[in-house]
């Protein structure tokens, strides 16, 4: 099977690899580029562990061929922290609020939360839960993930974060 060149912007840098048309974006990232933050957790596009941000959209990278993303701007967890290493408010929030345990769903969850907060900078808990309904977690029961995202929302809005009594 002949390969084609797929070039795109990954976390602000141009990247390139020769892949088959059938190469899924998740494999392009993990295998060809050694970007192993996004993970694979299922075969049927349900779990969201592979979620990346493509041209302003949350996308399950296991359900798109790399070639379809040619020329796009792709953001993964590796691109969330600033160039100086300063963590994004979400990365900070997930740690502050114990929003992760095994860490496997975390890259996809944070990338999805990133886009969610762009869609809606002030979401209610219910809106957060709907907003992350494409990301499964087996460890946390989501409750602290919701708190983590609220923490980040407050920080990004420059507001003091008040933990909801639950």
């Amino acid at each position, binding site marked *: 099977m002949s390969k084609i060149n797929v070039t795109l912007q990954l976390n602000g840098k141009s990247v390139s690899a020769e892949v088959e048309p*059938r190469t899924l974006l998740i494999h392009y990232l993990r295998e060809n580029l050694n970007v192993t933050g996004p993970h694979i957790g299922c*075969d049927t596009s349900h779990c969201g562990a592979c979620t990346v941000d493509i041209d302003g959209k949350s996308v399950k990278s296991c359900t798109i061929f790399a070639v379809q993303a040619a020329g796009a701007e792709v953001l993964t967890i590796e691109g969330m922290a600033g160039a100086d290493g300063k963590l994004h408010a979400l*990365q900070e929030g997930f740690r502050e609020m114990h929003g992760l345990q095994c*860490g496997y769903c975390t890259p996809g969850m944070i990338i999805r939360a990133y886009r969610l907060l762009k869609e809606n900078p002030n979401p209610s808990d219910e809106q957060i839960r709907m907003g992350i309904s494409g990301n499964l977690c087996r460890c946390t029961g989501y*409750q602290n993930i919701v708190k983590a995202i609220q923490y980040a929302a407050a920080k990004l809005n420059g507001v003091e974060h008040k933990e909801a009594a639950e």
Partner: protein
Amino acid sequence: MNAPTDPSAIERAEKLQGMGCKRKRVEDVRFTQGRGNYVDDIKLPGMLHGDFHRSSRAHARIKSIDTSKAKAVPGVVAVLTAEELKGVNLAWMPTLAGDVQMVLADGKVLFQNQEIAFVVATDRYIAADAADLVEVEYEELPVVIDPFKAMDADAPVLREDIKDKKDGAHGPRKHYNHIFNWQIGDKDLTDAVFNKAEVATKDLLSYQRVHPCPLETCQCLVSFDKIKGEITIYGTFQAPHVIRTVVALIAGLPEHKIHVISPDIGGGFGNKVGAYPGYICSAVASIVTGLPVKWVEDRIENLSTTSFARDYHMTTEIAATRDGRVTGLRVHILADHGAFDACADPSKWPAGFANIVTGSYDFPVAHLSVDGVYTNKAPGGVAYRCSFRVTEVAYAIERAMDIMAQKLGIDPVDFRVKNFIKREQFPYQSALGWEYDSGDYHTAMQKALEATGYRKLREEQKAKQEAFKRGETRDLMGIGVAFFTEIVGAGPSKNCDILGIAMFDSAEIRVHPTGRALGRMGSKSQGQGHETTWAQIIATEIGIPADDIAIEEGNTDTAPYGLGTYGSRSTPVTGAAIAMAARKIKAKAQMIAAFMLEVHEGDLEWDVDRFRVKGNPEQFKTMTQLAWAAYNKVPPGMEPGLEAVSYYDPPNMTYPFGAYICVMDIDVDTGVHKVRRFYALDDCGTRINPMIIEGQVHGGLTEGYAIAMGQEIVYDAMGNVSGVSLMDYFLPTAVETPIWETDYTVTPSPHHPIGAKGVGESPNVGSVPCFANAVNDAFKFLGSTHIAMPHDNYRVWQAAENLGLHQ
């Protein structure tokens, strides 16, 4: 250990971030930046990929396997079948339960999706293509799917390899599809009690087949070094040393030439304890090709072939007096193990710790009998976040208590409280052989009742029932109660071993000259946060800040032998080993301090992070100073250095307990439920990190919710398996998952060095019966006594239909 009270001590303790603190997790630093190191993140030069061709049939003889088309695909390096494995005596492997299991199908297949051939190629896409090209000719055989029919006189023979063996690993076999019978308790006394019981209940309580389904599937990367004759195995192993022992046993390689490394693991929940064909095939492929071989299963493979959980069919009987005092418990369990008994239990316990079925109640007599059978299903089962078979029997006893309460006309809380083991009865000898270490059930239940306003909820429920009867509402309200006692922390060497190795656990702690430390343990976290919590134990014990303590797990070359992490055993066993090792260090430090301060050891007292002279507190030495002294100038006759190892053989298991209450509303016309409230009070003894405990409880409750309300691996009459992708296998999203209210009491374990019991699995043990009791409770007033799990929309609707509620 008493908490410090003076301000300087409190400030110093805060800096330590020791036990009791909500210390932020060390692991999060890398996980939130995509720098976790999971098995599939690891690449070795020249690495090949393996993929399986799997059986489409549930039970069939293999007439032929044609691998020629697969081998012809460019990039395919090898194709293994049972034939090739026989050459190295690995076509079969021993299971942890004393059975044997085919690694690759040998002459026949016994369950759908069973491994037949292992294709090894230069990349995973080629391996997938080639795996599809293996051609198998089957001669179909009749199947055994219903475990209740497995021992029929005319049942098909499944295990031809042991057909004539009258004895299995656990005693005599009554039938060729029978695996074991295991019994405990006084049968005659129990039968006598039932024969004269004033009131008795008897119910078949089935716990459906489910699967732990961690988000990361099982995987490994094996590299055999032909020159050194050594093998390195990276894998998703909850018990890396056990895997090393398995490899040593079956591959004939010596232990010092086997390097097993569990890197970061994306959830285990019991799925990653045992050895799977993928690991063995990868190892053989690496030996054969001389290159590293990686195997990563996909989700459907994971759910349909790696070990399932539960599938226990429990006929549960309670005898009681008319005024509500239980007098006896009699349980028979039919255990469906699938095609091979690949249970991951301690070896003398083929039914795990099912004899905890007496639960929180003072049964004067009891008897338990378990029969395991083979069927044409995936082999197993494992402890899906549940210690060993504890979730199964907790479900049985909590359902049965509710059923008896209903029969007696007593409130299910009152009936439980009436029969609780009392605080003064601890340590409590149960009628089925366990010594429960400590408990205060009445206090916990009282707290739960007050927090939820239980009595008011019952009043509300009564009013709603009347409204339903009047046709004013189509909603039913259910209140579920569960008061579980579970048994974790396997276990004492006198009765717990895995493959002959006692179930102690271990810790090695080394303090460096500048007062920083390194700890290596025999446990292996898959998300439980050991890098954070183990340091907290050490910090409190020896007064070094947790941030100055590095924790390592998972490398069999460097970690002392441990039996791994599952069954909530880490805090009870490894945690104890950590405390004991730390105390050895502290004892040596005390001698050094006495020497430096020119006093007797007995003149010193410990103050958070230092030894000080009694009555003369300005005379002190901090642990940091003592660490330096250990490498600098120790008392005459003492070795330099400051480190210790402890292998801890627990004297007993531990017995966490809890009170859970659930309020649920059910739409009778669709079967849809809504969890209005879920309150979980857990007593895990001493609490190391409340933040992590809360996270563990949230996660376990969510898994229990999924099990009770929808998870199921289904086999049809032909043995076709379904429910094995995430389309159907119920993993709730953030939308379905209820909001959890957590609470606690603290009843320390008297035999544990820090009084801790473990908590990871309690929420799964208690929540499943709590949800099931809530659903059942909703329908009780209409005459229903038992509705089986899972309580998905359809089956709840069907229960309503059966009660004639849709006229």
